[in-house]
């Protein structure tokens, strides 16, 4: 098979990698058109990092093939390394070097001469709003600043493909927003980006296309909207004050909804899938009002990627792969790992 056309920046075909008895990758295919952002979404241990390590030549696949910027990762790893910039899960910033020295070093190792490496380092420091801290050792940087420096390191050689492996894992909310902003700028500049994440809203926010990976397999792919459409329309949720009113609510929701309503007695809540969104909501409230049911709370939810993940895998993205889902947790904590 010939190398992929130039409009495809990254292509992986049937990648398999086993570690001992664990099949970390079990036939992963993916394709990233040039200038787009692909989000590789999955829980810990799903195979995201293994995929990244193969595409960045850090690991050889047991079988399957992969091309980055037209170069075979196994046959021509040096050409691949010249075409990529990697920003790791654990920022590989040398904390005893200054921000400037870190970027200068990376530039030199990409083969730039002293003048070019120095100029590029200053340019990136300014772009990533690190110029004021450029000459301080990186260990004095905040978590968000370190990630920005690490991201800048991935861009030193203006690579065709930027690989960001869990760029915000372990960051506090402020650091995450900060990093998202920088990635957003990158994308606006037309870079091809492979982004791995276990945060659903991160993929939603940044990626053009999302590949959901679980147990070493891609189990779904599409835009965020397409994935959400797979789960169905919106969900209408009504909470009442008296348990005795739940039956009446369920009756009304079965009339306006597109599916059987689900009653949660304990929370005195009934919810149902609806196709007509706000219209169904207004209709339901009108009928409940006619029956004098006291509605305490009402909500219309667009499905989140969390719902997508749950419906695809039977477990939430942030649970352990085998754990049973315990409802849909909304307030997700930034995990410090």
């Amino acid at each position: 098979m010939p190398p992929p056309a130039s409009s495809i920046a990254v292509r992986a075909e049937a990648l398999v990698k086993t570690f001992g008895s664990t099949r970390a990758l079990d036939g992963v295919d993916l394709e990233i058109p040039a200038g787009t952002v692909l989000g590789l979404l999955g829980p810990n241990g799903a195979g995201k990092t293994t995929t990244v390590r193969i595409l960045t030549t850090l690991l050889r696949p047991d079988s399957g093939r992969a091309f980055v910027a037209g170069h075979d990762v196994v046959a021509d790893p040096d050409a691949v390394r010249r075409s990529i910039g990697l920003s790791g899960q654990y920022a590989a910033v040398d904390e005893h070097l200054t921000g400037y020295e870190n970027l200068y070093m990376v530039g030199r190792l990409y083969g730039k001469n002293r003048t070019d490496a120095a100029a590029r380092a200053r340019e990136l420091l300014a772009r990533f709003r690190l110029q004021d801290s450029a000459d301080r050792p990186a260990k004095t940087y905040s978590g968000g600043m370190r990630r920005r420096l690490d991201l800048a390191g991935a861009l030193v050689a203006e690579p065709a493909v930027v690989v960001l492996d869990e760029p915000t894992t372990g960051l506090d909310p402020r650091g995450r927003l900060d990093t998202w902003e920088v990635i957003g700028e990158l994308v606006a500049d037309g870079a091809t980006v492979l982004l791995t994440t276990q945060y659903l809203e991160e993929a939603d926010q940044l990626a053009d296309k999302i590949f959901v990976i679980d147990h070493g397999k891609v189990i779904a792919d599409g835009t965020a909207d397409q994935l959400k459409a797979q789960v169905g329309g919106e969900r209408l949720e009504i909470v009442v004050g008296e348990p005795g009113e739940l039956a009446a609510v369920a009756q009304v929701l079965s009339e306006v909804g597109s599916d059987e309503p689900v009653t949660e007695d304990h929370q005195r809540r009934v919810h149902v899938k609806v196709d007509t969104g706000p219209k169904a909501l207004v209709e339901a409230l009108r009928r409940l009002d006619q029956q004098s049911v006291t509605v305490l709370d009402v909500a219309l939810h667009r499905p989140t990627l969390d719902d997508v993940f749950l419906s695809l895998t039977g477990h939430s993205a942030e649970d352990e792969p085998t754990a049973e889902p315990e409802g849909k947790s909304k307030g997700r904590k930034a995990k410090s790992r």
Partner: protein
Amino acid sequence: MTTISASTRDSGVVTWRNLMNVRRQPDLLLGATLQPIMFVLLFAFVFGNSIGNDPDAYREFLMGGIFAQTVAFNSAYTTIGMAADLEKGVIDRFRSLPMSRAAVLVGRTTSDLVVSALGLLVMSVCGLLVGWRIRGSVVDAVIGYAMLLLFSFAMSWIGAWIGMLSGNVQVAQSAGFIWMFPVTFISSAFVSASSMPGPLKVFAEWNPVTAVADAARELFGNERPGVLAARPESWPAQHAVLFAIVSCVAILVIFTPIAVAKYRKVASK
């Protein structure tokens, strides 16, 4: 750019990075400088008075041994440095760059050689203070220092290999040092190998540390005091300088490829 000049440049960049790390954390130098001073003082004044009956002569004898021991310990710093880079993901970043494969190892062993040279300087000054002198020719003294640095560099490659075997800094901190004690003590660094019991004596006779210590004494023109004057009849003991240099070359020939192969393996895990 040719492959060799690219490799040299990459190794130079990694060496620079490692030395900047040392400059920003001067406490890293404590081990390489204070430890030899401590050994000089301990051996000179604790053992010096009980080995033989001439403490001054023992100190003169001792310095060659401490030189050999100190440069051998250089390998432990390489062990810890490699393990730290692996643990922190620095190696991954290097591996994802289009740079020479050997540069990380060459850079590490080269920067440790610089630290080792600094340790030798500190130790020489300390030796001068306790009465040690270079009594041979300038050329011999230069050869002596060059041989010590060659030994340091060779040991550093063993250390790099052990560092990659240990995988993390905590293991590296014990793994890097533990084997140094038998290797440096079962030698003629501090006492005469000929007074040791059977198997230990054989080990000591063929131990490169013995050869390096004896060669340093020869090249610096340091006399062996009466009780320690007896040297084994074995070939290495009779040809210390030659055997020391051959040992260093042999260590490099064996451990450079082993370390490079191990680097490829750990880095692609």
